[in-house]
Each structure stands twice: as C-alpha cells, then as structure tokens.
C-alpha cells in the first residue's frame, strides 16, 4: 500500500513539534541504505501543521497513512508512546486530526470520500502519539522526557511500516 508518513505539529511550540522531529529521523533512517529499511511502499515522509479538511486534503492518494503527533491527555506519563488507528480513536480528541476551524479528521475523510477523493480507510490511518508536557510555550526545545521518547516513536513507526 502506498504509505505516507506525516509528522504533525507546530515546530516552534515546544513538545508540539515532536511529530516533526520524529519524521525527520525516519526520513534519515529510510534514506540510509545501511539501515536495511527501504520500503518502496513508503512514498513520502513529510511534516505539516494541519488539521481537519486541510489534513484530509493532504492525505489524498495515500492508501496508508502514519501520523506522528504530540498528544496531551494528562493521564499518561510524559513521553509515553501510543499507537492506534483513526477508527480506534475517540473522535474529536486526536490532536491535529481535530480542528478549531473546520471539522475532525474523521468527518473530513468522510466528506472527501463522498466526493470520490481517493483517501485511505480509517483503519489504515495509524497514529503514533507521544504524550507531551509543554504545548503552550513557544520554544524549539522538547521536554527531556519527550526528547527521550523520540527513538521509541521512530521504532513504532518503523514497526508499522514493516
């Protein structure tokens, strides 16, 4: 399946930028022939600060998507890496897959599908979420526990690719 890996978040808003950091590492791993991970199905690794309809539009033509994003539940230790699919996720609570200005990603995907836009099924939209701490202060630094979780998040994405 044509796979898109997308790091979501705001790269200058502290831990919210962790999706971008993970995506950059994955890009490096995949482009390194020595890593042994060169899945031709992975067509693109990218970063974005999008939600709702805009995120849906970005997912056009992908058959499988892995979103990497910060999450803030306050229920898990900072740096905890979770994996789930969009269909497993309670609607409206998924980071950038919800949106202040338009609609949730799940709604947006349904809108797109009703327009015959080629989009992945909800069960093929995977989310790797990293529990964040600082998502209110502008900064280019990750909290230590979030920074430490980056290799684990990278591994989680690689495992999904495989």
């Amino acid at each position, binding site marked *: 399946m044509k796979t898109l890996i997308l790091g979501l978040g705001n790269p200058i808003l502290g831990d919210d930028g962790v999706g971008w950091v993970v995506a950059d590492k994955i890009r490096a791993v995949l482009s390194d022939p020595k890593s042994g991970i060169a899945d031709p199905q992975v067509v693109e690794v990218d970063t974005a600060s999008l939600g709702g309809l805009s995120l849906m539009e970005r997912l056009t033509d992908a058959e499988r998507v892995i979103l990497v994003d910060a999450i803030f539940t306050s229920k898990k230790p900072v740096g905890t890496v979770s994996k789930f699919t969009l269909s497993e996720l309670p609607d*409206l609570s998924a980071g950038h897959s919800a949106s202040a200005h338009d609609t949730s990603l799940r709604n947006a995907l349904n809108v797109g599908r009703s327009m015959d836009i080629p989009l992945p099924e909800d069960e093929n939209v995977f989310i790797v979420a990293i529990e964040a701490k600082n998502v209110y202060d*502008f900064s280019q630094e990750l909290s230590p526990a979030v920074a430490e979780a980056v290799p684990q998040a990278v591994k989680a994405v690689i495992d999904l690719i495989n």
Partner: protein
Amino acid sequence: MQRITIDPITRLEGHGKIEIFLNEEGNVANTYFQIPELRGFERFCVGRPVEEMPLLTNRICGVCPEAHHMAAAKAVDAVYHVDIPSTAKKLRELLYMAFYCTDHTTHFYALGGPDFIMGPDAPVAERNILGVIHKVGLEIGGKVIQMRKYGHNVVEIIGGRKVHPCTSIPGGMTKGITEEQRKEIEMMGRWAVEFAQFSLKVFNDIVLGNKAYVDLILGDIYTHRTYYMGLVDANNKVNFYDGKVRVVAPDGKEYVKYEAKDYAAHIAEHVEPWTYLKFPYLKNVGWKGLVDGPESGIYMATPLSRLNAADGMATPLAQAEYEKFYATLQGKPVHQRLAIHWARLIELLYAAEHWVELATDPEITSPNFHTVPTEKPTEGIGIVEAPRGTLTHHYWTDERGVVTKVNLVVGTTNNNAPITMSIKKAASSLIKNGIVNDGLLNMVEMAFRAYDPCFGCATHSLPGQMPLQVTIHDADGNPVNVLKQFVD
C-alpha cells in the same frame, strides 16, 4: 451560589471552559470564559532578524497563517521605512483574497452554517459539514472542496508554498507571476465569484426563507450594541489588506478613523484576574466592564463589524448584497451577532470579485515586485483584517534589524469581551430560577461560534464540533447535574 461549568474538552484537557455563576434566585449572575493562551511568542522572536517575522508568525496560528504573514510583511516594510511597488502590494492582496475565500468558505460550511442549514435543534452529530452535504446535496461538498483547492493553489503560486506562504519580504515580494499563472488565477477567481453567489443563494433559500431563523438572528439573545472596527479604503469601503482603521459608534456614526501606526493611541488592553486573554477596548471611551452601549469602550472586529464600520463594498456584486443585508436586517449598524455568518458570505463575494480584479490588473505580471530597502531599520506596525478580526503586528529592532520587542493584537482577542458578553446573554436567557433549558449547550456554542474564534492556534485545536460539558453545582458547590455533548 450555584455554579455551572461548561467545559469544551479537547485533546488538550482543560483547554478552555465557561463557568456560570448563579445568584440566590437561580438566575445568571456572571459568566467566565477562560482559555489558556499560548505563551512566549514575543520572547521567542527577540534576537532574531526581523525579516524572519513573516515566516515565524505563520506558525502562531494553524487557521490563519496567511493573515499573520501579511501583517508581518507590512510591519517589516514599516520597520525598514520602505514603500513597496504597487505590483508587490497587488500580489500580496491577490494571495490574501484567495486565502479569504478558503477561510470564509470553511467556516460557513463546516462550522457556522450547519447551525442554520441543519437547524439549531438538529442533533449535534448532524450539525457539521457532513450533515450539510446530506441535506443540501453532494454537489455542495464538491464545490467546497474545489473552492478550497483553488484558494490553496493561488496561495502556492504567489506565496511559494501552500498554507504557509514565504514570499513576502521587506520591500515587497521575492517573485512575481507569469502570464500563464495569471490566466490560471483569473480562471479560478471567476469560479470563486460563482461559488460565492451560490453560497449566498443557499443562505437566502435556507436561512432567510425560514422565518424561525430570521427571528433567531433578529432576536435579542445575541444582540449587543457595541462599537465596530474595520479597515476601510479611501472611499470608506471594506478592505482586508490596507487602509485606515475606522471605528463606528453603536449609533453607526464614525467615532474615529486612524492610521495603523497610531493604534496605541486608540486601543488599550484590560486585564481580568480570571483569564490570560486580555480585553482590548477603545482607550478614549474607557473600560466600563463587560457591558455594551456608547459609554463602554468594548468593540467588535468581525465580518459584521467590517460591514458596519464601512460605507459599502468596493465591488459591485458584493455592494448589492451589502444593501440587501441592511435592508433586510432593518438598519445600520446591525447589532445581532448571528448576522456575522451572513456578513461573512458577503465578504466571500467581495474577496472573489476582488480576486478577479487583481488577476486582470495589467500590473500584476510586472517584474517590478521588489524595492531594496535602504533606510536603517527601527520600528514598524502592520495592520490587516484577518478573517476573524483586525490583526496588528508591532515590531521594534536595533539598527541591525534584530528584533528587540514584539507586540501583537490578534483577531480573536479583539472579540474577547463581546464573546464573553454573548455567552452571558445566551446563558441568562436559558437559565431561569435555577432551571437550565436543554438548549443551553447549543445556544452557548452558537454564541461563540459566530465569531469564528481562534484561540490556541496551530496546534491547540478545539474540535470542530466544540464538545461541551456543563456541570451544574448546587449552592455548596456539589455537582448535581452534568450535561454532555461529544465528551468521551
């Protein structure tokens, strides 16, 4: 005292909440609307070259990066005391019109419109863009997606990137457009004009054709007699990119008109202990609390404010709609907040028409799109109209152009006081003698949704359906009732 908490739960818990305090009779005494503000942007910018600001400020907000890009671009021009070539100005404005069409379309069809198209009493699960598509037809969904696509295309052609443009620099633009690109942009603009007319027809048929909706708009529940702010051109017509800030009083008469650089003489910010978000107000009228009327310096800055603050629209089709708007709503200014949705569609039509005007302007393909700044950088202010209100960027630099201080007054902040007042009024009308009307959640949602508020920005997205939780506490503070909507 009874206490009610309405908590919009987001992925970021406790992201914002509304607390309602009742008096001994069980009627609303006060409401508090609290949101944690993103912190430290000004500090983050200090020490950076000022020409980075149009790129950095893109990242303040995931909803309207283009608005921040434009305000920042104008502010850095001012910092370098450079007049940009008219082609550069027109290119920026053209990009901005395409952005406006995308933004206003998204709000109307995904957020604001569903309240009307589906009806305020429709189940919340249907009051979204999918419900609209099911009710109005698949055709509408295709048009919304197409409008957004064209808007993104123009932003990419002129701005160099989708969503986060990067071509505005001190003195103008880094690149121009070719004749081929111009033709493409013109074609898309003409389509946008038809789409805007179609949207106004949808509004006309579904909303204005339904007496209950018209009564809802004209009712007292969302009415506040405040001042109104908006940018106007030399003829006092609505302008999004440039001009003077005009403020009209609650009676519709011009109160003041000032240049961007003089904003600090007219706007002050009130601080309340219960919220991080400031309350801007008209300094020379004064802060009198969260009340409306000519003695209170509270103003609104939204599509409706812009229409109220101007004498008309600069394009013919939008002007005709403007006249119909005031004729239907019986006078000017219009104080009813739900009319913001209609005003937004009139602005959509103006943006589309102006898009075509700019795309057919002979200067638009000129290679003269940049003036090299030669003055020493000092201080500069840039003001544009963001879709959700007047947006002000103010930068100070040292003689090398390194940022020493930043002040921003963002669109939604302008409306903090009016939003708070609208929530209070909606709550007051729906809670009587301790009895909470079932429609409380919906009506409070509608109150602040009309303003298209954008709080946290890029990342801290309140979910589209604005899930709410109302917790009602008795006089001792014990929760006695919880009303939920989309809360897991």
